[in-house]
């Protein structure tokens, strides 16, 4: 049910703090940078880490969907944005939009934003498939245990209720209610009792759940902790790499190196300003490198 699948590699065994820190740093940097080379560096880093975590197959649909979205963004940008001085195409007048004028700068801006979108969707794909949601929730339970408990219970109830929905629909089918034939309106109407029955039975269950919580002494004293995740040397290394790349990124942004002017005329790349992109990319591929080392050398595996 859950999108997450446990896989036998280092990245899946990371402490949630390291994984969340890594993901946050990438999102922050992706929004901070506008230079296409810097963004491409981030994309390469995330891609390597996703492949190292063995989630290439899950990543592919994300890539395809984002590519479709990028095309849309590029088209909208090219048609609507009139800024830019290198005109590629001078179109006719269209009533609402005015004169259509497609410029190289607008297309390049679309591509730059597309890479940013790709970085962000990829990093969320990484989060969905390589980080266990329960571990992350446990990380947050220090700040608000009631909200986290509600979220955890709800996550647990979700698959249970899906099973309920299937059961109720099957019962309805056995009773001769037509759920798949007839007009669209008829089908919707025939499916409504499913929701009503689901509501009643789940409310009844929530009552029992609350009583069993009460019976186990929920809220009767200070909370205790059953398991604790340990921060291992590998986690520290990744945390360090994430902080390092964040600092480098902020520094590069302050120098104005990671910014890029698209309008009115594309800026030329300056090689000296791009070296920081290299450093950030290398620092952010640390999890992938550690992951490969973890597989190759048992000694390293035992140490981190």
């Amino acid at each position: 049910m859950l999108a997450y699948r446990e896989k036998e590699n280092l990245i899946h065994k990371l402490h949630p703090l390291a994984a969340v820190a890594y993901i946050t740093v990438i999102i922050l940097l992706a929004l901070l940078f506008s230079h296409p080379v810097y963004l491409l560096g981030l994309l390469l880093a995330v891609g390597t880490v996703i492949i190292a975590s063995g989630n290439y197959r899950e990543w592919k649909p994300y890539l395809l969907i984002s590519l479709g979205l990028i095309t849309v963004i590029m088209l909208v940008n090219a048609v609507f944005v009139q800024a830019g001085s290198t005109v590629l195409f001078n179109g006719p007048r269209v009533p609402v939009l005015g004169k259509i004028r497609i410029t190289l700068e607008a297309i390049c801006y679309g591509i730059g934003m597309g890479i940013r979108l790709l970085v962000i969707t990829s990093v969320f794909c990484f989060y969905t498939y390589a980080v266990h949601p329960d571990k992350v929730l446990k990380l947050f339970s220090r700040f608000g245990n009631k909200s986290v408990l509600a979220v955890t219970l709800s996550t647990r109830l979700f698959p249970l209720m899906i099973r309920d929905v299937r059961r109720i629909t099957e019962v309805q089918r056995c009773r001769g209610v037509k759920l798949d034939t007839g007009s669209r309106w008829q089908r919707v109407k025939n499916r409504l009792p499913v929701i009503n029955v689901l509501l009643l039975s789940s409310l009844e269950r929530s009552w029992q759940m609350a009583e069993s919580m009460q019976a186990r002494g929920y809220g009767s004293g200070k909370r205790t902790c059953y398991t604790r995740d340990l921060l291992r040397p590998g986690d520290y290394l990744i945390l360090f790499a994430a902080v390092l790349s964040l600092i480098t990124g902020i520094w590069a942004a302050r120098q104005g190196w990671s910014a890029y002017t698209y309008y009115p005329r594309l800026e030329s790349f300056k090689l000296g300003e791009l070296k920081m992109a290299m450093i950030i990319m290398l620092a952010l591929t640390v999890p992938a490198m550690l992951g490969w080392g973890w597989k190759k050398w048992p000694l390293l595996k035992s140490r981190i």
Partner: protein
Amino acid sequence: MKKKIFIAIIILTGILLAASVIPGNPLYNVNWALFSPVIIGLAMAAFFWRFEQSGATSKEIALIATMAALAAVSRIPFAAIMSVQPTTFIVMITGYVFGAQTGFMVGAIAALVSNFFLGQGPWTPWQMYCWGLCGVSAALLARVQKGFKLNTFAILAGFWGYLFGWIMNVWHWVGFVYPLTLETFIATYIASFPFDTLHAAGNVVFTILLGKSFYQVLMRFKNRLLVVFEEVKQ
């Protein structure tokens, strides 16, 4: 104490918003794609903070978890037929019966939990916020009228179909559109109009079909939840 922190969060949000539009300070004209989730996060932190401090019992927590899971699951039986789902309606009716706090928590958790299964994304905080506010607004409506009135509830539900899209558009606009001008703003909103209309129509239809029965079931449950102790006079 809890009032103070709540007010502090509101003031902080206001200062941050003001700082981003008043020239002459380091936050002026910040990166909006980065700045807007911070504002949304602060607003949600205020609600979650209130909930943490509220001394909710195990029954309330179980109720919130159940209704949130129900709202998330209800996307499934209808997904095969059409693109509308009763999630917004379920969040709103919960807020209507159980009040603003429960309504917000149910909406926010429903968005979060359904995305555990459908995939998290940068849209998660925005969805959490939108659905949370759906619950809050329905609770405010319940304060001004007695019992369940189909007409006003349906109007609010239909309105939320649009408002939901409009809030989500802000995110899309600051994140991926350039330049941030009135024209691109209007273009983004025109592009989302058909989807919002579908959402609104779905909300109204679900209110008409399920409203009364959901209200009665939830009301009965609420009455069971409330235990009043009275001293026996001898």
